[in-house]
């Protein structure tokens, strides 16, 4: 029953109160700049009584609620939730101007406009909101993950219920979403790690997956898939090859076969689920473990304060293979993820597609299970990881702005494995983050030119 829809999101930290959105809305709805017509209200740059700058900036607009009280309160059936778009539609021919809808709304999202003599509310400009388009700071975004969930929710979950992942596991969420979207015409490879560890390939003759699935070695996922694909090509069948591999099976011991398959442009979708170490076997360090991290093989003691060397950036390495498609993704940005998954799937029909999904691990990184998605979000917002995609023709393009990042320290302090970091280590990581962004930006510019 519960349906998800596209929504306009507002990040007050990025808003400077410029009011462009309100002008754009007024223009779109009334052909004027007068903010009285704006259905998005950016609230008070200053406190009326003191004239002081208010921080953060607040916002009032229709949230297109799932159980809209404005609709329930309307005696005239003038308001209704459109089940396909999710917007709450207002029908002027039915409205009697009783204002009971405004009693139902706790957001200031439907309000009486004296100028026009009736209530007005955001209609998301039919899915192309004018306010979002003009926002110069990315404070307003049009988030499509809700509708994506609805679309994917209708598809069959191709893993069985009861996979035994840890509480709050990002990877289980990821693979369920992924396979739903990929569908059943697929062969799934899950090299040793958390994903088979949670029972996807199964135990003692029983399976955890409704589609063909297997354990490759930690070292040979890409090669095995390549062999399978060759045979299906030979017999003229179009079957998707999907690898769900951990960072060790990708960037460490699995790297040679991965690199070879990428070079040969084997038709497969290779997904790295990066939890920054060997979490399944007790949180040992991997090549993907960031400097300073506590792991069971880079402990914290008198002589060692976590991992001494930086992580390698596998996504960037794969980009250098000039694969058909390379992208990074985070589950806190599902619409972005799905977009990339679709592109990667399409690319995997032509050649090698690589998706690097950042997968914070509550058990191994030591943070509360309920905070997984929040940690994912902070990773991205601090630029600790960046969201981008690459194709040989387009080059590298960021899919989410890397400007105005949140301080890295905010991200680090959420996570137990960084608790011991001293200022030097934090500074080192911040420098590393800044440098990574700088060099990725250089790639972006190169692509823009060529």
């Amino acid at each position: 029953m519960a349906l998800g829809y596209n929504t306009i999101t507002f990040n007050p930290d990025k808003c400077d109160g410029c009011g462009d959105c309100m002008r754009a809305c007024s223009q779109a709805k009334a052909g004027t700049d007068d903010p009285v017509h704006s259905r998005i209200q950016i609230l008070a740059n200053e406190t009326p009584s003191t004239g002081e700058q208010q921080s953060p900036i607040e916002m009032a607009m229709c949230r297109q609620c799932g159980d809209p009280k404005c609709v329930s309160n309307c005696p005239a059936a003038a308001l209704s939730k459109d089940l396909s778009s999710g917007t709450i539609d207002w029908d002027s021919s039915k409205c009697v101007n009783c204002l009971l809808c405004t009693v139902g709304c706790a957001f200031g999202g439907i309000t009486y406009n004296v100028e026009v003599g009736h209530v007005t509310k955001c209609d998301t400009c039919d899915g192309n909101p004018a306010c979002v388009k003009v926002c110069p700071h990315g404070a307003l975004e049009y988030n499509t993950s809700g509708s994506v969930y609805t679309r994917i929710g209708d598809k069959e979950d191709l893993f069985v219920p009861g996979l035994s992942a840890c509480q709050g596991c990002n990877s289980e969420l990821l693979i369920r979403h992924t396979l739903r979207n990929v569908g059943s015409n697929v062969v799934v490879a899950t090299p040793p790690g958390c994903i088979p560890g949670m029972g996807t390939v199964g135990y003692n003759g029983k399976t955890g997956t409704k589609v063909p699935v297997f354990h490759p070695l930690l070292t040979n996922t890409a090669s095995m898939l390549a062999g399978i694909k060759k045979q299906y090509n030979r017999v003229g069948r179009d079957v998707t090859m999907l690898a769900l591999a951990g960072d060790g099976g990708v960037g460490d011991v699995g790297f040679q076969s991965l690199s070879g398959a990428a070079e040969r442009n084997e038709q497969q979708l290779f997904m790295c689920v990066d939890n920054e170490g060997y979490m399944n076997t007790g949180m040992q360090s991997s090549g993907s473990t960031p400097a300073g991290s506590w792991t069971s093989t880079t402990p914290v003691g008198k002589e060692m304060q976590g991992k001494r060397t930086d992580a390698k950036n596998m996504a960037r390495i794969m980009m250098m293979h000039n694969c058909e498609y390379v992208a990074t993704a985070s589950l806190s940005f599902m619409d972005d993820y799905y977009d990339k998954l679709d592109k990667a799937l399409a690319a995997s029909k032509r050649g090698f597609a690589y998706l690097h999904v950042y997968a914070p691990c509550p058990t191994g990184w030591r943070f509360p299970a309920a905070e997984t998605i929040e940690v994912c979000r902070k990773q991205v917002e601090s630029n600790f990881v960046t969201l981008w995609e690459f194709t040989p023709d387009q080059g590298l393009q960021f899919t989410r702005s890397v400007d105005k990042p949140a301080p890295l320290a905010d991200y680090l302090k959420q996570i137990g494995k960084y608790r011991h970091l001293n200022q030097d280590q934090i500074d080192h990581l911040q420098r590393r983050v800044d440098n990574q962004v700088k060099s990725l930006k250089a790639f972006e510019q190169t692509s823009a030119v060529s």
Partner: protein
Amino acid sequence: MTTIEKAITPDIDDSHYQSKTLVCDGNEAAAWGVALARPDVMAIYPITPQSSLVEYLSQFVAEGIIDAELMNVEGEHSVMSALQGAALAGARTYTATCGPGLAFMFEPYIRTPGLRLPMVASLVTRDTLTPQCVWGGHQDAMLVKEAGWIQMYCETVQEVLDTTTMAFRIGEHPDVMLPVNVNSDGNYLSYGATGIQLPAAPLVDAFMGEKNVNWHAALDPERPMAIDPLTGGAGGPGPSMFANYRKSQCDGMQNALRVIEETHKDWGDRIGRYYSPLVEEYRLDDADYALVTIGSMTGAAKDAVDLARDQGEAVGIIKIKTFRPFPVEAINRALSKVKAIGVVDRSVNFGWNCGPVYQETLAAAQRLQRFLPSASFIGGLAGSDITVEHFSQVIEDTAQLLKGHHYDEPIWINRND
């Protein structure tokens, strides 16, 4: 090339039932053997002395003689991995390797038998590092004798071709379902050119029959299943499941003894060339003692035995073709005819201070329930030649056993060459 190409086209025309004569070395012969078996997927990575074999394969693919997917992968590890994948999708698969390549392949290599995937991999045998060496020897193949692959050692270039083709049928037999190594000695067989007969393709096609390599396990959306879930542990159904998997793998290996014999017989009936499938007995019936040999060395050994026979020595040869599964009964049938043996190895068993064939032969012989005087000879390492002269010496040394002589140590051939 064109006439030979025609020989393996499926057109059924009387002339095509005629075999062709060609002059080639063992690596090319192996490639022809592969071509006749019509594989679907081949993955390759070059390594001396196998390289020319995969060059021939590539050439055959380039010229359309072999219609198969050819995967030029980045190393032997991926070679074996890709072939496993292909086999799980239903492909007939082939590769070749040796020495360090086999060592690098080892991780996926030891998994193929457990997956019960029929597959043929030629081992163009090579001695192992170190000392640094690129020449023939059996050390590589002997190191993997416990991995669960069927292993057959060839004596001649013709046998390389014939055995390579037969190996596919043996491995794919439903009672076997195991991968097969066709071993040909690096240098001696790989590069030794000779005239051979190329069987006519239609005859071989009839011999091979229907292809069905993965009826038991598949990665196929049309029959979804999980391949290789975690099995075993100390509780639940796991331990017995694991034991039963292993047992059935051993059963497949034992079934192979029969299937190898049947296949060689059928090959002989259809193609006209018969081989001793497990163990060849050479001038053994009236022998007092015998040499035990394996692989291409046997040619020189036979010459030496012929010479010794001329001089009245009652000596024969027991040649092992099938080393895995070890043909205990066939060996013992042969051993029971003699009073002493000298076993010649082209590799060593470090811990036992002898050759591995020697050790295995003695292990079989204990079932004869009588004392069999024996000597272990180690030679032909790193490409060195075990000549007729060397074998004459081996015969002489072995004859000493009949006089009550006893050797505490292996006798090293080529040490003074």
